[in-house]
């Protein structure tokens, strides 16, 4: 009896820590699908080479499957890819394969690496590497390589909405190597800023940090919000 209990305990712990990549993705999707819609207050902080912008407050609206809207009084900068793309990509079952990448500890959290590779040709995402918190079944980090927007790294920190896989803080690290200033637009009559030309050796990575508070989940959101123009 004692041996059977021991065997069961070892099996269970093994199976917990050694879930397959597909199983993990399924667990993540299940969590994602719990959220039909949400709205959340966001504070968006961008630190991107060549762009100077102060933090902006905004409200983010999301509705399944892919309705997404940022409403801000000011101008808010977000990464082109990465906010809802991972979840909508994972939701399309059968369009990708997931590959187990092993266990790691990331920021003190035990995580399972899953690499997701699309199997359809027209997918914008070329490769997604996910770090999944095996305890909470949420993604804590993503490395996203896209066809059109370069690579984006996304770090997630969760709080009280972890049950819905909704983070309190997301940090996007974007590739800025393609940024070039259009001369004709910026050219002054007399450029008085000769010494301020961008330094080519400067960091090529930019970060956008979004702090999210006051989630309202599954309370219903009118479609009108998503139709409104800025």
């Amino acid at each position, binding site marked *: 009896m004692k041996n059977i209990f021991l065997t069961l305990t070892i099996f269970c712990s093994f199976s917990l820590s050694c879930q397959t990549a597909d199983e993990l993705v399924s667990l993540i999707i299940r969590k994602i699908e719990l959220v039909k819609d949400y709205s959340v207050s966001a504070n968006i902080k961008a630190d991107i080479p060549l762009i*100077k912008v102060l933090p902006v407050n905004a409200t983010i609206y999301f509705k399944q499957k892919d309705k997404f809207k940022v409403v801000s009084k000011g101008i808010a900068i977000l990464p082109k890819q990465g906010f809802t793309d991972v979840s909508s990509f994972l939701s399309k079952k059968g369009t990708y394969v997931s590959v187990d990448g092993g266990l790691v500890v990331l920021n003190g959290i035990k995580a399972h690496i899953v690499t997701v590779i699309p199997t359809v040709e027209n997918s914008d995402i070329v490769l997604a590497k996910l770090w999944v918190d095996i305890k909470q079944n949420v993604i804590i980090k993503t490395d996203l390589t896209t066809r059109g927007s370069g690579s984006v790294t996304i770090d997630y920190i969760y709080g009280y909405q972890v049950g819905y896989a909704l983070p309190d803080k997301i940090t996007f690290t974007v590739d800025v190597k393609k940024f070039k200033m259009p001369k004709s637009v910026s050219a002054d009559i007399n450029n008085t800023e000769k010494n301020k030309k961008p330094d080519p050796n400067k960091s090529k990575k930019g970060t956008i940090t979004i702090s999210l508070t006051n989630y309202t989940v599954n309370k219903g959101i009118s479609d009108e919000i998503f139709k409104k123009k800025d």
Partner: protein
Amino acid sequence: MLLKNTYNEFIKIIAKPRSYIGLGVLTALILVILFAMKADGSSYISFVTASFEQTLSFNGNILNGNLIAFIILQMLIVHIPLLVALVTGDLISGEAAMGTIRMLATKPISRTNIVLSKFIAGAVYTLILTIWLAFLALVVVKWMFGSGDMIVLNSSGLVILQEGDIFWRYGCSFIVAYLALLTVSSLSICLSAFAENSIGPIVSTMGIIILFTIIGSLDVTVFDSIKKFLFTTHMASWRSFFEDPINLKDIWQSIIILVVHNILLVGIAVIKFNKKDITS
């Protein structure tokens, strides 16, 4: 006597049809820009943000009144000097061409006062033109396109200024832009003191502006030492208020150079006009 003749100068400027050309052209130019922005402003914006758009998305009312006011200022800074010179270049030489300079100079008012009153009148006309520009750019444009944060594309990159942080910048930039236009006014009045017809000073003023602008934009070391003393180099200093952080040292340097230009040009005009034999 200075005030009385300044009042006379205002009457003349108000009565002259050419004084309204500037205001009319300015209004027309702005209306054209507004029409273009209303019709196809998004393509202009995507041109500004093109290099970031692959990676980033800009959310919010980007094409707002604040940005369009900036675009208008940027586009028109080349043209407004011509509109200023059209009136101010005529202030002394126009009187010589018309023959009224004889009448003026035989009155018990000193020649210095005649020139100074013309400078004051020219400065007020330039101010009216600047205020009209500010009114159209800030009030009318904001009424049409709304307000909001402002994207400014400088050679050092994009700066996004928050809505509440913009109005004072426009206030200051209009003051510096006015000072630059006042220098154009002073230059054309100064040239006007040397001429007997209005076309000469107007064309010469634009010629000098074009020449100095070309010298200022040529990346040739031989001109480096004089570039910072050319008033045209400082005509775009109003833009500096839309930098972050603002380089106050550069702005003050521009203000000082423009003020010195004005004093010199007024001085030259006064000396020339006092020594001038009126033979027309």
